């Protein structure tokens, strides 16, 4: 695979050149004295940062229903965010035409809930910082893809700390061609290795119910999930989670009821609905006010379900989502 070796400032120069057109935007990270955050840059880059060591929300959330015509956007985001964007594109929630998605090698992040001021935002120092895994978010420590190998292009970091810009698609090539330097073969081994395979997820209903005991059904997990995109969610009506008169009718039909009700129903159904598209970013757990370990369930279940069809969410633009396609000759043991 070929890429361009970058000197410091190369990416910024290329993006500044790109931003000179008033109709172009860059979605990336901004670093100032307050910390690092998502930023949509217009006109020019200032305080741009390639890495963001704090995870608050998945930026693909902001891309839902983006059908920008003639407005070009470059995404400079983490692999999990690019993967969620790829899934949203497959679900026809984002028009890909004018977007160039660049994934950047990710060192892992800390939770925004326990924001620490001592977290460095430089690539070199982060490896050192995350040597002891305790400070990393659980979702990141078991991440499936921390390498910037998804999307249209990737920013990779090799073992001696050099940055490489690697194009994967035609659009990526277009962006990379605007940069200085020649295409050369990239080193085989990079700083971020391939993630190890995780064990098959298994749990009993008792632990599940115990974990959910604290749930208050605020549905923040649904609202902050980048791939839970339905405008008319099944839980908004009275069919699954009745409210008011419908709830009282239900009590008269079935008997006394503990409130809030339907915690297991809500999470199990959501778990199934996002199963093939879940990227395991942990935004749900980040949004949970009660600190329920949701990533454990969503990531575990989605990896198993994606395994059935040898699918991985966000891996490529061309693989269709398993539920919308089929093979005639498959799954012989699915029937009883």
């Amino acid at each position, binding site marked *: 695979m070929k890429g361009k070796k970058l000197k410091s400032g190369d990416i910024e120069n290329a993006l500044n050149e790109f931003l000179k057109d008033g109709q172009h935007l860059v979605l990336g990270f901004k670093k100032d004295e307050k910390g690092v955050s998502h930023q949509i840059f217009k006109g020019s880059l200032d305080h741009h940062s390639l890495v963001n060591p704090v995870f608050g929300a998945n930026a693909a959330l902001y891309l839902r229903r983006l059908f920008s015509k003639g407005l070009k956007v470059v995404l400079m985001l983490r692999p999990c965010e690019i993967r969620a964007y790829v899934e949203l594109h497959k679900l026809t929630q984002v028009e890909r035409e004018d977007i160039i998605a660049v994934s950047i090698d990710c060192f892992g992040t800390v939770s925004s809930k326990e924001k620490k001021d001592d977290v460095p935002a430089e690539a070199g120092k982060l490896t050192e910082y995350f040597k002891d895994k305790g400070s990393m978010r659980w979702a990141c420590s078991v991440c499936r893809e921390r390498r910037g190998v998804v999307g249209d292009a990737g920013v990779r970091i090799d073992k001696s700390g050099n940055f490489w810009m690697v194009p994967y698609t035609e659009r990526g090539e277009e962006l990379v061609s605007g940069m200085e330097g020649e295409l050369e073969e990239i080193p085989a081994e990079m700083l971020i290795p391939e993630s190890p395979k995780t064990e098959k*997820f*298994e*749990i*009993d*209903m008792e632990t*599940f119910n115990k974990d959910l005991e604290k749930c208050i059904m605020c549905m923040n997990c649904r609202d902050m999930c980048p791939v839970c995109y339905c405008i008319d969610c*099944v839980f908004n009506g009275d069919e*699954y989670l009745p409210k008011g008169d419908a709830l009282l009718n239900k009590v008269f039909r*079935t008997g006394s009821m503990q409130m809030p009700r*339907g915690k*297991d*129903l809500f999470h*199990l*159904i959501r*778990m*199934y*609905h996002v*199963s*093939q598209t879940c990227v395991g970013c942990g935004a749900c757990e980040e949004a949970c006010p009660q600190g329920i370990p949701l990533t454990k369930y969503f990531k*575990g*279940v989605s990896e*198993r*379900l994606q*395994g*059935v*069809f040898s699918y991985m969410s966000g891996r490529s633009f061309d693989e269709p989502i*398993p*539920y*919308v396609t*089929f*093979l*005639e000759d*498959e*799954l012989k043991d*699915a*029937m*009883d």
Partner: protein
Amino acid sequence: MAEETSKKNPEIVGFCCSYCTFKASEMAGSLRMKYPEGVKVIEVPCSSRVDPAFIIKAIVEGADGVFVSGCHPGDCHFIKGNFYTRRKIAALKEMFDAFSMKDRLRLFWVSASEARRFIDKVTSFYNYIKEKNDEREKA
């Protein structure tokens, strides 16, 4: 009395495609064949109409078992509906497996003329669930 029997006997919800399995159940009725009373059959236009959310809801709200049944693969009235069902239910089974309740969901194909097969499948599922419940009660 009514409560006692409802505790003893499992409740099974079945989603049956209106072109094949539901017709088979009607045929079973007209042939005076019997299947357990706990089996509640719901007619759906096609087995792929069954959103796995229906199944999860049925189980969470108290059903002991759920089955989905449609035409044999390739015989779907809507040409390819049951291929999608097969994928969806296979994934749902994998999810139930993670929560160790895989045996509460079944998928089978019954065509409109196979009344006998419908009775067999439903009865064996019912007996299996009943046995499981009895074991749990004893333990």
